[in-house]
């Protein structure tokens, strides 16, 4: 794994631990060690000249000044070399004892610059460096040289933060003073986010774990809360009107659905891939999925589990390749109380690699992927590849995308993102008695006649799917007989009969689908075993309030009318409040009385005793019609009388 390990030294406590660990790794991996001390002779020289004026008066004589300059020059040129030699001697002796090949290096120059230059121009495959140098004080968390080297190099770096003796770090303390919960000096924790850097980090961790006898585990963190913050922030600045136009609540729900279910599955799949990689190496690895802000959750995990080493990708899955260090990595590098391995290598798990190399995408599938937001295309492409590879496909078609995304994205999100084009019309088709042909490409609906070509996207006849009412009805019957319902994210939930009945109180169509999704989500959040009527009323109560006394077609459910305060009783009929209000808008007097009678007659004809708004409107229509007829009749009669009037 490691053949050439580079160790910058400065005789600090962290540096000394770094040397110890490097020797240990050199021994186990058979690697050559290169120790390097950088010294800044030129800087010392300049500083001395700048401060000559502070020398005591006896030195401010020409001859003495020259002498002092000469002494200082000697000190700088030779002394610093001697110091470097001494620092490197420590490492040399340890290497000799361990029979590890060692090469010393001394470089004059600005420390971070020469180190970076040396690392970038050589083939070291690991750099081991202390998190802090000699200049560290109590509150220091990361030395400036280390930070600058981390930012400017692309070689794996193991940053030493634990200053306990390496023997103790690797084998644990014996007796009562066990420093961590494992008692063996701690495990290796790998933070996996699906990036090639994190997968390469996992490979390194497995190799280190094997050689050092350390257990390796993987964790992954997804952040479903960021969008809540974003939406709340936006909600505070939008006017009520703008919120309505923007359909803010629906957008928020869509995001919730996508993020709650989609992100968890994606990051879980990264962990599964990690586990598979470990299994291939003969390791049964523990995996843990966490939710929240990545660096915070990992930090908490590390503080709790106290691993020996945290392995992270230098940059994360969302970083540009040009990025020096990812923000989560940077925060953790400063804050975690354990050693850190920053992986700059890249490793793409074989399944993705094979998919990238062998998969062919149809034009339609490529276009569909391109229609997804740019930021998620990479993630979606990986998920689709994995799905297709696992099932032996070699060509990615639109159908494969639909199938691959189905377990990740809820159907509503797929519809909203245009992934399912032909589904768009199917839900409404049952209202139509003839045949309907739906274009699978764009969703165009043609009734009764199968088009030769789609007038919207130009697709040929074969792209149209026929949908008839019988099919839909059969499906409907099948679904209606089930007590177990499929939720918006394809999970199955149990509904009581009462709950299903209560849900019908929400107007059919979009409102009902939305209410159902809200109820299902609430049930899942609360971990309820089944959905009850009470829950339905609690979640969808507001929507139902206005309509709960009405059946779907606007007729009163006779069994539930009596106690409602909104009902007004007038003689043999009861009136809903809106029907009564409608009647009150008719001019008082004979017109209102006449209209009232017509409305009551309508109710009578329907065989109900409750006058609803629909019935009231029907009565008014009848009244208008009667009035028009009357006016027409009068006009006709007037015509007949015209000659006489003249």
């Amino acid at each position, binding site marked *: 794994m490691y053949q050439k390990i580079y160790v910058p030294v400065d005789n600090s406590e962290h540096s000394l631990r770094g040397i110890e660990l490097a020797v240990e790794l050199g021994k186990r991996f058979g690697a050559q060690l290169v120790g390097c001390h950088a010294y800044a002779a030129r800087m010392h020289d300049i500083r001395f000249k700048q401060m000559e004026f502070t020398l005591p008066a006896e030195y401010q004589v020409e001859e003495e000044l020259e002498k002092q300059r000469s002494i200082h020059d000697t000190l700088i040129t030779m002394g610093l070399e001697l110091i470097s030699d001494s620092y490197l001697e420590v490492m040399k002796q340890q290497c000799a004892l361990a029979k590890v090949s060692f090469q010393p290096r001394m470089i004059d120059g600005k420390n971070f610059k020469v180190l970076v230059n040396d690392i970038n121009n050589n083939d070291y495959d690991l750099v081991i460096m202390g998190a802090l140098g000699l200049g560290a004080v109590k509150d220091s968390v990361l030395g400036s040289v280390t930070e600058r080297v981390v930012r400017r190099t692309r070689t794996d770096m193991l940053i030493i933060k634990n200053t306990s003796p390496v023997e103790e770090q690797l084998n644990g303390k014996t007796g009562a003073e066990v420093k961590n919960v494992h008692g063996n000096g701690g495990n290796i924790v790998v933070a996996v986010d699906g990036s090639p850097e994190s997968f390469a980090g996992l490979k390194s961790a497995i190799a280190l774990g094997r050689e050092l006898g350390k257990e390796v585990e993987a964790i992954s963190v997804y952040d479903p809360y960021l969008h809540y913050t974003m939406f709340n922030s936006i909600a505070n600045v939008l006017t009520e009107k703008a919120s309505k136009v923007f359909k803010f609540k629906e957008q928020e729900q869509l995001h919730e659905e996508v993020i709650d279910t989609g992100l968890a599955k994606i990051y879980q799949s990264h962990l599964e891939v990690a586990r598979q990689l470990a299994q291939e190496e003969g390791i049964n690895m523990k995996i843990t999925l966490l939710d929240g802000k990545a660096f915070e959750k990992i930090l908490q995990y590390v503080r709790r589990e106290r691993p020996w080493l945290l392995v992270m990708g230098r940059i994360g899955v969302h970083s540009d390749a040009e990025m020096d260090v990812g923000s989560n990595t940077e925060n953790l590098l400063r804050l975690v109380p354990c050693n850190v391995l920053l992986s700059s290598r890249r490793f793409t798990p074989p399944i993705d690699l094979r998919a990238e190399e062998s998969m062919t995408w149809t034009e339609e599938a490529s276009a569909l992927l391109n*229609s997804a937001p740019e930021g998620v295309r990479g993630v979606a492409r990986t998920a689709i590849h994995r799905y297709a590879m696992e099932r032996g496909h070699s060509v990615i078609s639109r159908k494969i995308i639909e199938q691959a995304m189905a377990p990740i994205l809820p159907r509503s999100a797929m*519809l*909203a*993102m*245009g992934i399912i084009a032909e589904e768009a019309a199917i839900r409404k*088709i049952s209202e139509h008695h003839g045949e309907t042909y739906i274009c699978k490409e764009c969703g*165009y609906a043609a*009734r009764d006649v199968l088009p030769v070509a789609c*007038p919207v996207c130009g697709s040929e006849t074969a792209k149209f799917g026929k949908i008839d009412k019988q099919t839909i009805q059969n499906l409907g019957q099948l679904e209606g007989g089930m007590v177990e319902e499929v939720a918006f994210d394809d999970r199955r939930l149990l509904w009581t009969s009462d709950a299903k009945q209560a849900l019908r109180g929400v107007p059919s169509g979009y409102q009902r689908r939305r209410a159902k999704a809200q109820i299902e989500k609430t049930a899942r959040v609360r971990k309820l075993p089944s959905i009850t009527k009470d829950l339905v009323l609690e979640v969808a109560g507001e929507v139902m309030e206005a309509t709960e006394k009405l059946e779907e077609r606007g007729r009163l459910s006779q069994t539930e009318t009596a106690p409602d305060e909104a009902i007004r009783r007038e003689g043999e009929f009861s009136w809903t409040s809106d029907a009564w209000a409608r009647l009150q808008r008719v001019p008082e007097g004979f017109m209102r009385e006449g209209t009232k009678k017509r409305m009551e007659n309508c109710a009578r004809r329907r065989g109900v005793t409750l006058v609803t708004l629909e019935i009231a409107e029907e009565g008014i229509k009848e009244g208008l019609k009667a009035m028009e007829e009357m006016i027409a009749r009068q006009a006709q009669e007037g015509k007949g009388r015209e000659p006489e009037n003249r």
Partner: protein
Amino acid sequence: MATERAKRDWNEVEFLRWEEFRQMAPAIIQLEISRLGEMIECFPTDTDFRNALVKARFELKKFSECLAGCGKESLEEACAGHLRNAIFSLSFDFSWLDEEVAGTLKYILERLMNVHNRIPLIY
């Protein structure tokens, strides 16, 4: 014509860099495609209105794809037509529609027109 109008009524804050447009337009178009998708879902298949929405969504997707592959110079010639077609598809009298739906459609049109009117202002 659009360029002339832009010159006449130009406002320097509305000029934008090509990179900004490439960043801004797909985000807006994608949101409007989603919004249209939701509306399409809510209308029965036997209405011409639904097919008009389908047509608009289709043209917006075309515009979006085209935008991803074109340069500043070829934008007007190669892509803007799709955006105009989408706008035309939505340019019907929707006073008969439910107030909320009509309001949303008006909002979508305004957003699309805004993207369209920025095209001559790209530098």
